[in-house]
């Protein structure tokens, strides 16, 4: 099975970090995986996106043009990429920044006010991880406990607060009810 995931949003929203967590979990689970960010001066414009492909077979192009799953963190990304989701695919979007109907009924759409939730819980900037929690909850792509352990791996003891915040964010997303 192959899952092609695209995550997109503003530069500062932690897209790269979040997608790397998916890739790392896939690697540890012994699956094939590729990760590639968009690059170039468009980053200057402030948008950023990242492709992750998880598969049981060798992966061809690492660039996701038609995602199975889109994680949209701002309006531009929503507008640009929702039309590209594969029929039957899935959308998870930050409904605190995107207040707009999805406009497609051939995909499974999930809204979560990630940015709002993050600031409500005093972990502003962790919307990306909240989105991850939601993703794992909906798709069951990875074991949530293992995923959490990767999430805090490599964060030094000196930044214990960050670990905690990540776990908290994940759980907010994972436990969110629409």
């Amino acid at each position, binding site marked *: 099975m192959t899952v092609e995931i695209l995550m997109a949003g503003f530069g500062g929203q932690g897209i790269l970090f979040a997608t790397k967590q998916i890739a790392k979990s896939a690697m540890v689970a012994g699956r094939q995986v590729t990760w590639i960010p968009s690059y170039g*001066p468009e980053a*200057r*414009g*402030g948008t950023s996106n990242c492709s992750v492909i998880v598969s049981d077979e060798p992966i061809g192009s690492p660039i996701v043009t038609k995602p199975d799953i889109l994680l949209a963190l701002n309006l531009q990304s929503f507008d640009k990429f929702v039309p590209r989701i594969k029929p039957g695919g899935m959308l998870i979007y930050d409904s605190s920044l995107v207040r707009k109907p999805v406009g497609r009924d051939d995909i499974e759409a999930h809204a979560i006010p990630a940015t709002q939730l993050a600031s409500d819980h005093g972990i502003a900037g962790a919307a990306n991880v909240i989105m991850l929690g939601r993703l794992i909850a909906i798709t069951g792509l990875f074991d949530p406990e293992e995923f959490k352990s990767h999430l805090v791996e490599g964060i030094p003891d000196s930044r214990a607060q960050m670990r905690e915040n990540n776990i908290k964010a994940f759980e907010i997303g994972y436990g969110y009810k629409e």
Partner: protein
Amino acid sequence: MAELVFGRPKSLSDVTLSYCPGCTHGIVHRLVAEAIDELGIEGKTIGIAPVGCSVFAYNFFECDMIQAPHGRAPAVATGVKRALPDRVVFTYQGDGDLAAIGTAETVHAAARGENITIIFINNAIYGMTGGQMAPTSLPGQVTTTSPYGRNPKIQGNPIRVCEMLATLDGVAYAERVAVDCPKNVLRAKKAILKAFKTQIEGKGLAIVEVLSSCPTQWGKSPAEALEWIRTAMMPYYPLGVYVDRTGGDAE
């Protein structure tokens, strides 16, 4: 009755500039456009865009524009100016473009006294490619290619471009300005205007070095970045006129 105190110069294209929020490239663009407007030369001006964050400058000025290879804008400008001596030709270049890969082209355009105008954006970093060390990065400055701080013993010392070019007889006018505050922006405007006049009067090469901010790659807020121009850059790069062989009448 309302009088327009400040509006958009006509030579600046009606598009959104591609620069990061708070990047002072944008201020300098406006100043160049204002100078072109005030001199009424849009129709006879040809601008050369470099490779750097200002690579898209060809979309931002209303005059004819050429996009040059990285560092070669002064050579391209030379080709244009020699083909069309009565046109006004300017380059707009970053510090990597002008003072690293383009060092030879810069020095020799200056030595030839090539009758062109160079707008030189010194932001002490490679903005476009993501924050690498520039020839003008300060000692100790952390960049992605000097992650432990620029060590003059290993990575060398910053080049003071105006001072270096001042040793060349072909330079008619060289001034270093900054765009960190309204007063300096107005001074920069005067310098840019003079640099174009120097060319129009056939006096030789004119260069305006602008200390400019790169909030994104410096990792600072736009306002902090202006402060860094003042506190970190200016001591190393003193503002002022380094050459003025225009005889004053280009003022």
